[in-house]
């Protein structure tokens, strides 16, 4: 394996998720908000899961949040991530009001514990998109 072999799975893009991935090319975080009930949701859907309204607008987020749950992986979930172990998988509660799965990078994995504050960071994917990850922010 060469040094620049990808260590990140670049996921396929769903129609509902496309605006998120497009903004990720510029390392901008945007979230889907319902035009009907004015609430955010995650993951991106064609309709709002709170009220089923079909109109969703994308708003910028400052990417700040709190770790809700965390687990360190001693083995990779897929072979391409082998060089990353141990790494930490987290659920982050964004201040905007949604919860999403991610990783915390740039720290000892065990330091990314429940309750720690985090801020958005980005890891490049091979196709120009970026993966939303987090760094400790407290």
């Amino acid at each position, binding site marked *: 394996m060469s040094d620049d072999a990808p260590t990140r799975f670049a996921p396929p893009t769903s129609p509902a998720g496309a605006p998120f991935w497009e903004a990720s090319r510029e390392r901008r975080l945007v979230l889907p908000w319902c035009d009907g009930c004015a609430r955010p949701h995650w993951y991106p859907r064609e309709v709002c899961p709170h009220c089923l309204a079909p109109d969703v607008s994308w708003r910028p987020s400052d990417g700040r949040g709190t770790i809700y749950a965390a687990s360190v992986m*001693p083995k990779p*979930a897929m072979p391409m991530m082998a060089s990353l172990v141990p790494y930490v998988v987290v659920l982050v509660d964004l201040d905007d009001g949604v919860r999403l799965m991610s990783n915390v990078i740039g720290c000892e994995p065990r330091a990314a514990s429940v309750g720690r504050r985090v801020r958005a960071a980005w890891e490049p994917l091979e196709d120009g998109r970026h993966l939303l990850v987090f760094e400790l922010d407290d």
Partner: protein
Amino acid sequence: MTDPFRGRAAIVGVADAASPTGELVGTTRALEAAMVREALADAGLALTDVDGVFAGTGGTFMHSMELAEYLGIQPRWTDSTQTGGSSFEVLCEHAAAAIALGRCEVAIITYAATPRSSFKRGGPGFGGGAQRAAALAAGVVPPMVEWELPFGMRTPMGAYALAASRHMAQYGTTSEQLAQIAVSTRRWAARNPRARLQELITIDEVLASPYEATPLHKLECCLVTDGAGAVVLTSAERARDLARPPVLVLGAGTSHTHSMISQMPDLTVTAGTVSGPAAFAQAGIGPDDVDVLETYDSFTITVLLALEDLGFCPKGDGGAFVADDPLGPGGSLPANTNGGGLAYTHPGMYGIFLLVEAVRQLRGECGDRQVPGAEVAVAHGCGGVLSSTSTIVLGTEATR
């Protein structure tokens, strides 16, 4: 007021297959057929009596149709509901309801999977990778692939580990307390000659086993084995004349809260808070009346959350509750008396074994691991990643 479904259907035949080697011989279809034959013989019923087919797995697409065709059954009630490991409790609820309504009279539920021998042959073993690949090939992007897979969570243990991390942070639950669940369960497995793991273990040994995903250690995670089982239900009236003492379905409840773990509303609260009280209310009893508990133990945290959500202890107190070994032999709440998914068998979807063991306990057939005088048992399934739960309350003739 008595619930109209309470006690109207009974489990009258059971069978299961597992081996200390973890492996079984035969295709899954052949194993299912053997289980159905054995469970019908256990009940004293014939294949021609069966008019309800319940199967959430085993086929390629139309599970109950493919099973019924293979077995030569043309039923008047069919059900292919799939909720992961809790499927069999859901199917039991559906079968009991269909029987109570008179829409079918003799129902079979069956399951077989051989992930251990499949993996040794170079096959896929256990996991959803094949289904995900098929969805992608069809141009559909499953949300899990887009929003979870890139972060490398080991599945399924990582999802349960996230829940354990949250419970620990929120309630002070310790790894020692979670480990006690594995220790208690192994004490039962030591009394089951068919269990995969029969040697007693200590809390220290659990904590010394490697992490699969922090905070969960290897010995807190279920087995991957081959296994198979079947359950036969009929009406309470017809059950009176059959070969074995009937085990009445006193109550049932089902719910689910999410499919993938990042969508679980609260990682410390499962759908058991809905399915459990619903099943108990229908049965007209409460947690204090339960003599034996068969509860899904994919991981130690699965058991801990179920104990809280079913009302055996208050939310957050699960760690303290399990610490004195109430779940083991001689304890106040004997649980997973066959050795559970942690030590008996776990072919990927364990729920049918919960029903089989609960029935055998209520019939008094369990030998060295028999809970003396058991009259009320609960089988509580959990499927997906803490996603779906289904609770079945069972009772002997004395509870009718």
